[in-house]
């Protein structure tokens, strides 16, 4: 019984570690993906904000 608990505890601990690392990687990856695809690159979801188009190449060129 005790062994079973130890095994379960180890599995849960490893899972927690993997999920935590996964969450951090996902958050960073998601941000990069959003920026690359021009989808809510700023992290703001407001439909009208047009943030996706704010940092496009065209905009940067326009400023230059």
């Amino acid at each position, binding site marked *: 019984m005790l062994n079973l608990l130890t095994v379960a505890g180890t599995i*849960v601990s490893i899972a927690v570690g993997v999920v*935590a690392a996964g969450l951090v990687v996902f*958050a960073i990856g*998601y941000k990069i993906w959003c920026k690359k695809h021009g989808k809510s690159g700023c992290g*703001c*979801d*407001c439909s009208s904000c*047009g943030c996706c188009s*704010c940092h496009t190449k065209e905009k940067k060129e326009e400023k230059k």
Partner: protein
Amino acid sequence: MLKIALAGNPNCGKTTLFNVLTGSTAHVGNWPGVTVDKKEGIYKKLNVPISVVDLPGIYSLSPYTPEEVVSRNFILEEKPDCVINVIDATNLERNLYLTTQLMEIDVPVVVALNMMDAVEKRGEKIDAAKLEEKLGMAVVEISALKGQGIRELMERAYRAAKQKRKGATVLTETALGHVIDDVRIALDGKGAENALFHAVKLAEGDELEVKMHPDEMKMVTGFKKQAGKELFGGDFEALIADARYKYITANFSAVVERTKKAEKMTKSEKADRVLTHRIWGIPIFLVILFGLFHLTFGEDFLYLNTISKLFTGGAGFAQDVETGSEVLNAFVAVFYSSAGISTPGAILFNLTGFVCDQIGGGIATGLENVGAAAWAQGLVNDGIWAGLSGVLSFVPQILFLFLLISILEDSGYMARVAFILDRAFRKFGLSGRAFIPMIMGFGCSVPAAINTRTLADEKERVMTNRVIPFFTCGAKAPILAAVCGAVASQYTSVNADLLVFGLYVFGMAMAVISVAVMRQTTMRGEAAPFIMELPDYHLPQFRSLMVHLWDKLKHYIKKAFTIIVASAIVIWFLSNFNWSWQMVGIEESILYSIGSFVQWVCTPMGFGLQLGTFGWVFVVAAVTGLIAKENVIATFYVLVPAIGAVLPGWDDGESGIGAVVALMQSTGITWQALIAFTVFNMLTIPCFAAAATVRGETPKGKFKWTVAFWMLTSYLTATAVYLILTWWWTVFIVAALAAGFIGYVILRNRGAIVCRKKGKGAVSE
């Protein structure tokens, strides 16, 4: 695929129509200038799918602001197959001004008479068939809000898109008719597209056209010389505008049938006599704003308990309920406590806190029972869950605040706020138009910064972008709620709602002061003229309100499960591990060493060296807030157990703001320093997303100064707030310094002090 563009005056219902056509949930607001960029969607209810493009509102095809350029360029350059000219039928004649310009372009145009339900309500009638006959273009009566007439509109637009159309003008009979025709023939000869449109714009002296067609412009200049000053003093643009309005009045007035009912003062006009009153307008606005904060953050609904204290010798009717069960006590405290009956916002907050507490307890017990390692338990309980629940517990309360703000926006009141504030703040160099993006800043600084495109004056645009973060956004609201709630719980004489309201107003006041200072120093100039059409008041649409809330909820959830969880994990890791990657106590951790190193910087603001060992917690929270402002509270929650502080339990009814209370008790931070900390976070560099957007919206080279402005303003203001709240007499020193600065600026502007540049340095005389 056929492409149909929606064009029309601001606030005529284009985006509402776009949402109905495409099933989108684009932001709709009852004020002019909500849409600043084009949006595309697909209409699928005909046999073939049709691409629909929603364009920013324009009054004419001579653009003055960046978002107006978007509309003009789209129609002229991207050549839609048909333009649906959306018209606010309650203001037919004014809206037809744009129609007379659109009809000059070689594109099929269908006129959508929107808001016909409102026209009927007013007791007016519009003869659409007669209008169609006079315009020579299809006219369809619709109500985008109620979804009426939509299919017919799209069918007629589809049919129109299949045919070619040559532009026509209402200016043929005017004094400029001949020259316009000559220029059109010359342009036609060169094979130019939309020759008539360009000819009219050349006659107006449109800057863009003059650059594009210098040869043809010579014909207009020659005619101008011939005509001398007799024709409108040589101002052809004014002459053409006058001719268009005269034509509209002469030809289209007859299509509107007004009854006696319509001639009476409308409900909106009656309401405006009070709400936009010269004297009472601003006090009424402040009372409404306070009402919002009371309903969201107050713990004593309508101050019933406070009022009862006046009649019962200070006891009040409210008392803590003792049921004998800890969970039941906590549940009852959600609705009722010794402070009084909870307000709706407080109930939502308490309820979420209660649920979060139960879930957190369940997770902790589960991990312990399963025998998970201590670090795994710590990571889940004190890292991931602490960070998540810290933010999520505030979400329903903040959403409730947004619901109230959305009601004000959709009702049309927010447009009035810009109007009444314009009258008060024009003398400080700020126009009411700039208040629209600022008010949007209460929701999120990102769309607010983008909305500054509607400002024609570049200086005003830069200044507005700089002060938008001072309008506390939804992400900063949890900081205010937590800090004010914690202060109120520790000092019974303080009301959380009053404190939150005070801080919101303080942010607005700082925006006005900052603009006034910039107007006298780096951004000199007059406030741009402010002309805004006040929309009619109407009852907010349930669907529209829910769309607003859904957008906000999605935003919070997405942020919570990405950037906030990730930050919480990183902070937990940094506060539990040392540079050798070994799990250690907080005092040997990476975060401790970094935090302690920079802690002194915050000493003038009250949360630096004076706090001793764990004062750096606040510095770290402020830094993590740069990623997302919600991180400030998440960081508090993660660091409370790390520094050995204890969160008050739900039986104290304080769990939601418990992290701040725990930090007050363990670090010894004073309430004055906490308020200074909040002020610093309100005024400093906004989150990375907002900062990046501001960078995109400001001219090249201005952004570095904007960052410097945010840092300096927040640091100095938070220091002043801490000093004044701690030692009241320092108010005289701060006032003297401010007076000195104002005096210097006044004298410099009058020429009494001259700044001369010598080489790289500057010398004052």
